[in-house]
């Protein structure tokens, strides 16, 4: 999974999503991009989101605590764009880099 790690986080997220969905038989109108919505565009169910979280954590070799992204004000969010995943991972990596 670490072989999918790219030079930027969003590229990594896109590569992982491409890898994850390669057998799903999706008929996409456009390539997966930072604007792609997981549920609306890729038909992600909750179990798929969990698998994406695991894949990202494996890729970076750490856990990110995705509950902070998946829950807002006590409720689970409806859908997420890949850019939101990338931004969340970036924020966690940044936080880690400045924490002594």
């Amino acid at each position, binding site marked *: *999974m*670490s072989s999918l790690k790219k030079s930027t986080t969003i590229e990594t997220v896109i590569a992982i999503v491409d*890898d*994850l*969905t*390669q*057998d*799903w038989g999706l008929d996409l109108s456009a390539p997966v991009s930072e604007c792609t919505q997981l549920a609306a565009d890729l038909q992600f*169910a*909750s*179990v*798929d*989101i*969990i*698998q994406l*979280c*695991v*894949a990202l*954590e*494996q890729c970076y070799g*750490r*856990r*990110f*605590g*995705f*509950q902070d992204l*998946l*829950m807002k004000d*006590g409720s*689970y969010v409806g859908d997420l764009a890949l850019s939101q995943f990338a931004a969340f991972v970036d924020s966690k990596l940044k936080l880690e880099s400045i924490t002594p």
Partner: protein
Amino acid sequence: MTVRTLFIGLDGATFTVLNDLIKGKDGEPPVMPFMAKVFAEGVRSKLRSTPNPLTPPAWVSLMTGRGPGHHGVFDFIRAEERGDDVFFTLYDSRDCRVETIWSIASRQGKRVAALNFPFTAPPPDDLNGFVVPGFVPWRHLRRNTYPQDLYDRLKQIPDFNAQELAWDFEQEKQSGDQLSDHDREQWVSYHLPREKQWFKVAEHLMDAEAPDLMAVLFDGVDKLQHQAWPYVDPALQTGELSGFHLRMRELSLGYFRQLDGFIEKLVTAAGPDVNVFFASDHGFCASTEIVRINAYLAEKGYVHFRELPPGDAGMRRDNSYFAFLDWHKTVAYCRTPSCNGITIRVARNPGETGIEPSEYEAVRNRLIRDLEDLKDPETGERIIAEIHKREDVFPGAAMTNAPDLQLVLRDFGFVSVRNVLPVVEKRAYPIGTHHPDGVFLAYGPGVEKGKLLGRRHITDVAATLLYSLGLDVPSDFEGKVAEAMFTREHLDKQPVVLGAATLSDRAIGATETMAEDEKEQILAQLQMLGYME
């Protein structure tokens, strides 16, 4: 290269059923003729499961030679209390704190193949061998299959179908919605092609790769018995049986007949020099009553249910399998039906709700007395037959993740967490539930013949498999080699040797959450499996 050890997991297999299926009746041959041969020419013993005889802790104990207090996997779902809410997460292989036999054998140069075992996903990236994990939806099999090119290789197997092979949450959710006769038939039928897919993968890997340790788990035994127990339990085949009953029995026996054929082919393909072992993670028996444990704890003042919100949200909550609790007032509760345990809420940090740490022992002792008081009004018999403190049954570094009290119901059933009365209610018909005694069998060269041995513990399987591979048994294993399964001559030639300890703690800390509909999906599945009323 040749296979040295073949391990066939039979999830939920019990001698209650197997003893019946190996016997011919009324001039008819046995349903499982090959298993009859294994009984006659090999050895067998009951296998005591983990304190909560449940797939996650039990299979992980079988794969690690350690109890849940060490490996840290207690349930399908892990709960984390955070402020005023509880986040539910799924356990995965990263939560296992101790080394598995796949890893132990790998790093000593043995090639392994582990097919359909739960909590092998995500697979480790340094295995000497092959993993196709169980309990993973087909859309994620590729990513969780090891090595990376294996999935494409499997697709070349004639008639390979990942959707048939993998755990289909959606189908099981649909099946769980209605337990009509038709759905029950579908449920049994669904597992016939699944097992065939796993058999074909095992057959392919054994032929193409011949790993030293070839291991495959057939989990249809458990799934079938949950819904079809009345049709397979020999004790329930008396009196006038309906046409549906007879049809379901024949369908169920057809499953076992097919399974026996797969086993025979695998053992035959492995060759005469291979040690073959069979084990189940737990046994099976009938559950005849529903025990609504949180409703009982509410009567005793430990649980406080929250008022349901109005409208659709309230209806959804009311239909939810998770208890909707007031976390400011709830002191002790049962998190999931499958855990069969009680968690005491202790306020360990400022701002947290729950009892003071100093009150813990007093509250727990009072709770035990209250649980002991739950009795059958007609017979006076305790509904909760056993109540264990966690330090007594889950010693180890992971004990703090265990329920504070582990319960064993008198019929070995799983509790309900719903806010429904009465607390105890007779089921409309018996369903299959997990009995603590599973099966352990050995067959092949160096193995005793035709003997029924004393009961072993589930952690002994890992030690025995490593011994069979010619490896030392790690000194920190709880499990012991089942030496009585082997002939004296064999033991003299290959003595049991205790070796270096396993590699230490590998689990990593935080967790990811599970979205609401995923929780529902998993729980619907668990309901279908009989973990819920």
